[in-house]
């Protein structure tokens, strides 16, 4: 079944002490649609505290928005029937940031994969299950004999993150919600991971929502990009357009802050520290909006 994931006017408030009104607004009136067909990569880029992870939690059904709705195949995900909910949980798969926190250190990594086989009834027999697991591990360029039977601490961060991708590969969801999946990996391993996501898009028709603060990974992935700041999406469009002709001052600030690898092209102006600090994670999303930083 091919469907659509849609956020319609999503707002997420959190109670907070010592803030005017007693709450902060982490996500404010966010709407977008992820189509399964044609498969695509959509990046959501913004800095710490911009609300991007909250959106991931909303899309995954881990957090019910205070207003607006998350629709899967046209239906509110918080009002699905049991069978529909199971379908949604299989069809929309997460990949999280921390490749260490996902695994229970007391179990071998095989367990994560076997759980998926059993929970979703992927195969009827153990031997077919093992076949499936090995096939998926190879699809993410892991050798089954090097990882099966091992404990999480015996694998590198990149290997652990790829095991999560192998799990996704077994389930063949329409959607992957990847929340900062590469921010704890170093450059080479990072490229590896991104290539696998692109493979999944091309070969298995999976659509990815890729959440990151890093513009160079957005650039590498291509596709569409949405820029979020203070809980609001301020710009969206194809990566090539947004990166080359940014229209919103915040996008411009982000792009101008990338250190250009050219000593003849150094920053000639100073960045306004206070304006940046206002955007930083210490500031609640609904704090008074600062003037655009002077560049």
């Amino acid at each position: 079944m091919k469907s659509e994931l849609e956020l319609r006017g999503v707002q997420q408030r959190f109670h907070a002490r010592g803030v005017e009104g007693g709450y902060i607004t982490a996500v404010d009136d966010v709407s977008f649609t992820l189509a399964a067909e044609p498969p695509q990569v959509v990046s959501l880029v913004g800095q710490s505290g911009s609300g991007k992870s909250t959106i991931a939690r909303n899309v995954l059904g881990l957090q019910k928005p205070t207003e607006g709705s998350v629709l899967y195949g046209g239906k509110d995900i918080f009002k699905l029937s049991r069978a529909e909910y199971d379908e949604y949980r299989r069809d929309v798969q997460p990949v999280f940031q921390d490749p260490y926190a996902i695994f229970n250190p007391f179990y071998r990594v095989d367990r994560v994969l076997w759980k998926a086989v059993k929970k979703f009834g992927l195969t009827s027999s153990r031997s077919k299950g093992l076949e499936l697991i090995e096939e998926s591990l190879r699809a993410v360029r892991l050798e089954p004999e090097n990882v099966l039977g091992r404990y999480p601490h015996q694998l590198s961060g990149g290997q652990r993150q790829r095991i999560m991708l192998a799990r996704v590969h077994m389930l063949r969801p329409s959607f992957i919600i990847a929340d900062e999946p590469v921010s704890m990996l170093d450059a080479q391993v990072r490229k590896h991971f991104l290539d696998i996501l692109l493979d999944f898009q091309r070969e298995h028709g999976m659509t990815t929502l890729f959440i990151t603060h890093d513009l160079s990974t957005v650039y590498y992935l291509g596709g569409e990009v949405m820029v979020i700041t203070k809980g609001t999406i301020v710009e969206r469009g194809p990566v090539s357009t947004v990166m080359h002709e940014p229209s919103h001052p915040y996008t411009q600030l982000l792009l101008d802050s990338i250190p250009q690898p050219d000593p003849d092209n150094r920053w000639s102006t100073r960045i306004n520290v206070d304006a940046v600090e206002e955007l930083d994670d210490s500031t609640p999303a609904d704090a008074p909006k600062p003037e655009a930083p002077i560049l």
Partner: protein
Amino acid sequence: MSDSVLEVKGLDVTYSTNRGDVKAVRGLDLDVRRGEILGIAGESGSGKSTLAVALLRLLKPPGKVTGGSVTFYPGGRSPIDLLKVDGEELRVLRWSALSYLPQGSMSSLNPVMRVRDQFKDVILEHAPGRRGEVDTMIPRLLGEVGLEPRVASMYPHELSGGMKQRVLMAIAVALEPDLMIADEPTTALDVTIQRVILQSLGDLRRDFGVTLMVISHDMGVHAQLADRVAVMYEGRLVEVGDVRQVFKDPRDPYTRQLIESIPRVGRRAS
């Protein structure tokens, strides 16, 4: 002869593993000139961080310096062989003449001490003679990295990542060291905060005359900040030169590859 702060000659650092020895730094020669910002570039595993901890004498087993010499020339004092100095003499050098901004410095502040007390800790420990000045020093140092005086009475958990990084930078220059080694000072920070940090590092050199050795895998950081760049590959120094020469006319094929492989993101700043 130019005025050097640090002279490294034929430095070898080896890690012993159960599969044999691994040489992380091989026969490295390097001069750090007084007042300059020297960038150390290279990919993961090229030996950049090992070099830093070896120079700071923070190398832990199984790492071991297996050859070479490191001479440190603190201003107004006699040269010191950094690989031989020990105990009390080394402790006195740290912070006052040689300071370090570690990678992942977010976790380097003591979570149960106010920022002010962390400054006092360093200043009183390493320069007890300056006790009387401490209260005027702290706001001045915080101001230098663009932080308000009220930050002094805050706890680390009240600060953002970029603010913590700047507090550490202020502590690192508090005693006007001759040399400060910053290991990946911008990694893991948002891009706008990265720019603030680079700007502050430039300010510290301008205002304190501190010599900076900045280790980063990000060639953009070197292009924006460094006077000279040293490129490491598999533990060796493949090229050292003026930042313009290294970027515009790299002599070593590896440096050329490194520069060509940088993704050019977005429009060019004008």
